């Protein structure tokens, strides 16, 4: 048996190099990747300017479908953002011992998804230069946002969540920024000195830092749930068949967590490969997230079935027309959604072999992301396309303008992540060190097992 903690037996300099590889080494591949993503983003910006100058007529939007793929993107990105902070907060609060390598990637995903998603209502707005009308400020024209509108609730909730998520991400990084400050030179040292706020790692600082982290985790969970509930109410508050449903809020929250976990798995798989983090992001982490994903697939299936069954049974003509269109015009999207969200990933993720294989679980997660995108398409466009009067029924297809902006949103997300990885540690170094510090190996009969000290706030001693 060894009484030493694992951190004492780790070469900390090597650990620092491994975990900071993303911002210590810049290869030509990084520049190439960033260059390609920048080009796609620039193209998207150019197309957006064209749309702004020409008018919304260049999109596929037409009566009765006035919400198209731009709103689909909004719901998709906000959904993707949902899980990062939520997972991180839940894992922090439950003291999940495997959480450390996942936290930063998940929290960053939330922040960047929100930044991208939050742009879409503004892009979709038409006459975009008037976006400031949503901001309440006294003006001589007597203009004031209408608080009765769910879109206004959205603006308030998303801004709260964005500020909360950025703060949560930032607070989690403070000890790592202090580490980078002490290890770097030149302009980076100046930058990290300011950003670390003078954190030194004294006992009093650590205690208060932990209390603040716990408090953030407690506060951010209800905010995360409220944000996606409010996004769902954008739809559910309208008397549109297929939207006006009491189940929408929990259904959206479930869908958001589902796609969010899949997003976290994909981001982790990419980071693991690009920054050679095999020793830190182990199959165990993917296995645990795979179990969560499997459970969410089941819950999503249950919610979808429940929603479908009530309409199927009572055959309210307005709603039935929407749902029956899934078997006609929207059949390919519907089938893709069912296959990608449930039929393929659920049995796959039940197998430990799949969950522990990085390519296999990445594939399952990719399917889920595709499936959830299809689900958003069905929710947003199918309901509007079969709205009330049959003589105005009209199917919607996005134009090259909308598709270009959609591609640019993915490029923007990737680019933000790449820039972040260059400036900040993509792994929560302090949390990983803390995990190693609390872990020792001890004899258990004839075997040697890891023992982890769980230190509760307010307790004086850690206990094994």
């Amino acid at each position, binding site marked *: 048996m060894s009484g030493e*903690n694992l951190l004492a037996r780790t070469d*900390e300099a090597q650990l620092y190099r491994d975990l900071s590889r993303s911002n210590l080494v810049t290869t030509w591949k990084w520049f190439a990747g960033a260059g390609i993503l920048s080009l796609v983003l620039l193209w998207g910006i150019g197309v957006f300017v064209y749309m702004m100058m020409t008018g919304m007529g260049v999109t596929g939007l037409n009566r009765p479908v006035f919400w198209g793929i731009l709103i689909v993107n909004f719901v998709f990105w906000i959904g993707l953002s949902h899980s990062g902070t939520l997972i991180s907060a839940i894992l922090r609060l439950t003291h999940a011992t495997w959480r450390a390598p996942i936290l930063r990637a998940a929290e960053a995903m939330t922040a960047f998804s929100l930044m991208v998603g939050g742009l879409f209502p503004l892009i979709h707005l038409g006459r975009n230069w008037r976006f400031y009308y949503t901001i*309440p400020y006294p003006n001589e024209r007597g203009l004031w946002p209408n608080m009765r509108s769910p879109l206004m609730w959205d603006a308030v909730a998303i801004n709260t969540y964005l500020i909360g998520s950025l703060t949560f991400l930032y607070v989690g990084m403070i000890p790592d920024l202090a580490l980078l400050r002490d290890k770097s030179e030149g302009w980076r040292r100046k930058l990290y000195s300011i950003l670390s706020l003078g954190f030194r790692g004294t*006992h009093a600082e*650590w*205690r208060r830092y932990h209390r603040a982290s716990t408090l953030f985790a407690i506060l951010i969970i209800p905010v995360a749930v*409220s944000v996606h509930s409010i996004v769902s109410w954008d739809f559910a508050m309208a008397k549109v068949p297929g939207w006006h449903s009491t189940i929408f809020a929990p259904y959206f929250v479930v869908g958001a967590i589902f796609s969010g976990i899949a997003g976290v798995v994909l981001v982790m798989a990419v980071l693991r490969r690009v920054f050679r983090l095999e020793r830190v992001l182990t199959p165990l982490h993917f296995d645990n997230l795979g179990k969560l994903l499997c459970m969410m697939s089941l819950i999503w299936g249950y919610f979808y079935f429940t929603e479908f069954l009530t309409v199927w049974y009572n055959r309210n003509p307005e709603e039935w027309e929407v749902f029956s269109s899934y078997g006609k015009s929207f059949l390919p999207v519907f089938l893709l959604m069912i296959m990608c969200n449930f039929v393929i990933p659920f049995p796959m993720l039940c197998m430990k072999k799949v969950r522990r294989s990085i390519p296999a679980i990445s594939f399952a997660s990719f399917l889920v992301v595709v499936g959830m995108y299809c689900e958003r398409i069905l929710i947003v466009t199918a309901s509007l396309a079969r709205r009330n009067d049959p003589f105005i029924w009209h199917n919607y297809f996005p134009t090259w303008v909308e598709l270009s902006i959609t591609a640019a949103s993915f490029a923007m997300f990737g680019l933000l992540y790449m820039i972040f990885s260059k400036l900040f540690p993509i792994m929560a170094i302090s949390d990983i060190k803390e995990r190693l510090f609390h872990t020792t190996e001890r004899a258990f009969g004839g075997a040697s097992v890891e023992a982890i000290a769980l230190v509760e706030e307010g307790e004086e001693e850690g206990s094994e």
Partner: protein
Amino acid sequence: MSSFVLIGLFDGVEPAAKAGHALRALPLAAENITSISGVPLPDGSVTWDPRPIRFSRYVVVFWFVGALAGLALALATYLLYPLITAGKAIISVPPTLIITYEVAMLFALLATLILGAREMGLLRFRARKVHEPRIHDGKIAVCAVVEPGEQEIRARRAMKTAGALEIRVEEGEL
């Protein structure tokens, strides 16, 4: 003569804990001793933090302040810019609840950041504070505010006996 900070550098938690306990036994007040480490240490393992953590209760206060601000924003909107719709009240309760809740949460989140940073003593860039960058290489620093003379000699001895790799004197705050 004014007091200064004695900093002992230790290789691991055990010798640092011995030094921390020995310094307390000198006796030195708990508020005059602290550890600097790259990972958080449980309270009492090396040093004690006698100050209670207060900022969390103020976060609750700010939650209520935020709730009032949200309520005021929604109510002021209804009353100053009334939206008259047949058969509907000027003040609508469901949106008021949502706006109140979101603004309350926003205030609580910002209060956690600002009050937490303030209680940690962060953002005081001009204050001279003791610092030990070698904590990132696995070392633990034990720092004590001591009076020059007899107290300093005894504190040095306590650190050396505990196995300090290096002992130095620095002027500044803990």
